[in-house]
């Protein structure tokens, strides 16, 4: 009866379709032109940021603007450890560093609700950025760092592996009692606590899991950027973009954030190349239209289309 745990999976059709797409993506660097590989890597990066953001913020309704902080911590970890350790270890360390930071921040701030939590998490991005700037200027006397160079195919595959692990994690969380608990916290946190859910533990763990993937992504993408400094690494756009992508995609289903991230990331790329001077304007217009006319995101649109009631407007 519960859509989360007890509905039988429609595995054969959907499952094999997903498998085919994954295999195609896995072999694409062997055939596709380098530009497509780089473009796909960027799209994967946005999907990872968006889906991991939605793991925590989707069910709980706590709007986190911290993605840029966790992403940036991953980037800096990569810059510091890149030369000393093997690539996969560096990526793991990037994830781990963000995970630990999220545990700390979560334990301190998840008692804040609504807009206070959003503002604090956004403040965190600025705090770390400015701390690093201060440190680099006053202590080391440098500005920014060079990151080891890794070839595009390797970056693609590492990003792809992170994406696949993340999607599996997100899928199983949604179907688990942990996912159900997260959802109940979003519905009514008081009631959740009073039926035995350790709300602090559940929230902090979900927050940290989502940060883990953001950090790992930052660590691998840093190798493509070759040079980073605090302003590049802790760019607040990486906090807002995942939120927008998740909203455009819709958070009711797992594929919502994936769809939103993939479409907007591709759109951004197209607009940048075709309209380099007006792309932000056009991108903004698309977002406004999406938010105004797709209250439940692309997911809502697809569900409406499946039901076939185009003529009606939902009054929600």
């Amino acid at each position, binding site marked *: 009866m519960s859509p989360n745990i007890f509905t039988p999976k429609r595995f054969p059709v959907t499952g094999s379709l997903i498998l085919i797409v994954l295999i195609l993506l896995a072999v694409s660097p062997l055939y596709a032109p380098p530009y497509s590989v780089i473009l796909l890597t960027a799209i994967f990066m946005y999907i990872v940021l968006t889906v991991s953001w939605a793991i925590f913020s989707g069910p709980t309704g706590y709007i986190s603007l911290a993605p840029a902080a966790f992403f940036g911590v991953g980037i800096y970890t990569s810059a510091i450890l890149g030369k000393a350790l093997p690539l996969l270890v560096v990526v793991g360390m990037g994830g781990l560093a963000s995970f630990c930071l999220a545990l700390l921040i979560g334990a301190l701030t998840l008692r804040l609700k609504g807009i206070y939590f959003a503002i604090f998490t956004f403040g965190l991005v600025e705090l770390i950025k400015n701390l690093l700037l201060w440190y680099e200027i006053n202590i080391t006397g440098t500005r920014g760092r060079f990151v080891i160079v890794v070839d595009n195919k390797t970056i693609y595959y590492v990003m792809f592996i992170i994406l696949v692990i993340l999607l599996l994690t997100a899928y199983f969380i949604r179907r688990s009692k942990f996912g159900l608990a997260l959802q*109940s916290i979003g519905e009514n946190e008081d009631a959740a606590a009073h039926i035995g859910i350790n709300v602090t533990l559940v929230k902090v763990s979900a927050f940290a899991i989502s940060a883990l993937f953001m950090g790992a992504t930052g660590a691998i993408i840093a190798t493509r950027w070759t040079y980073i400094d605090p302003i590049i690494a802790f760019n607040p756009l990486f906090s807002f973009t995942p939120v927008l992508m998740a909203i455009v995609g819709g958070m009711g289903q797992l594929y919502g954030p994936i769809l939103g991230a993939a479409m907007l990331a591709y759109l951004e790329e197209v607009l940048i190349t075709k309209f380099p001077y007006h792309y932000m304007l056009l991108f903004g217009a698309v977002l406004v239209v999406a938010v105004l006319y797709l209250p439940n995101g692309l997911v809502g649109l697809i569900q409406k289309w499946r039901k076939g009631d185009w003529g009606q407007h939902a009054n929600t």
Partner: protein
Amino acid sequence: MRILEGEGVTQYFGGLAAVSHVDFNVNQGEVVGLIGPNGAGKTTLFNLISGAFVPKSGTIKFKAEPITGLKPHQICRKGLARTFQSVKIFANMPVFDNVILGSFFGMSNSIASADAARVATELLEFVGLSAVAATPAKDLTLANQKRLEVARALATRPELLLLDELMAGLNPTEVAQAMELVARIRDMGISIFMIEHVMKAIMSVCNRIIVLHHGEKIAEGTPQEIATSRTVVEVYLGE
């Protein structure tokens, strides 16, 4: 045997004593009513017992073990569940999920999914909500939402259940059904501590009644004693 015992329980909001030096107890298997005019501190007392607030002073013991200072989820897992005056259901989740969450998380040891599902199914049957198990909780009537809260609380396998105005806002038929539900919960061997304004209900179902006024306990006794008590009548009707 006393299952719940409070001594000198006190809570201030600003300078106002919402609950002031209140002693209370609930015996095993007993149904105890908590009444008093609006603002008497009844819900605050429940919030102190369930761990939503920590009392300024005084101790609360559950099964002879102090629970003051514990978090709500810890108190729930010890076997003390509650419902809320203004219903706090998981509105957008199916009725069934609301209840199964209680059985997943409300017990001190973990439970297999199949067992949790069985408990939830049985409890929905018990409160009469089997037919709407797949409906989003927000689509239920108020009476059914209150029943859902009871089922969710029962799913945590409590030994003591706190009912905060189960019957407020219900029509006479629904009140009668709710009274019958309370009696059936008592017959399961679960002790009940209930806040209620519907006098007919509280007089017929309770073994004992505690009366709060301005945060202080002003009377305690059997329904007959309370109904005839001069102090209680004065508090409710004026002198």
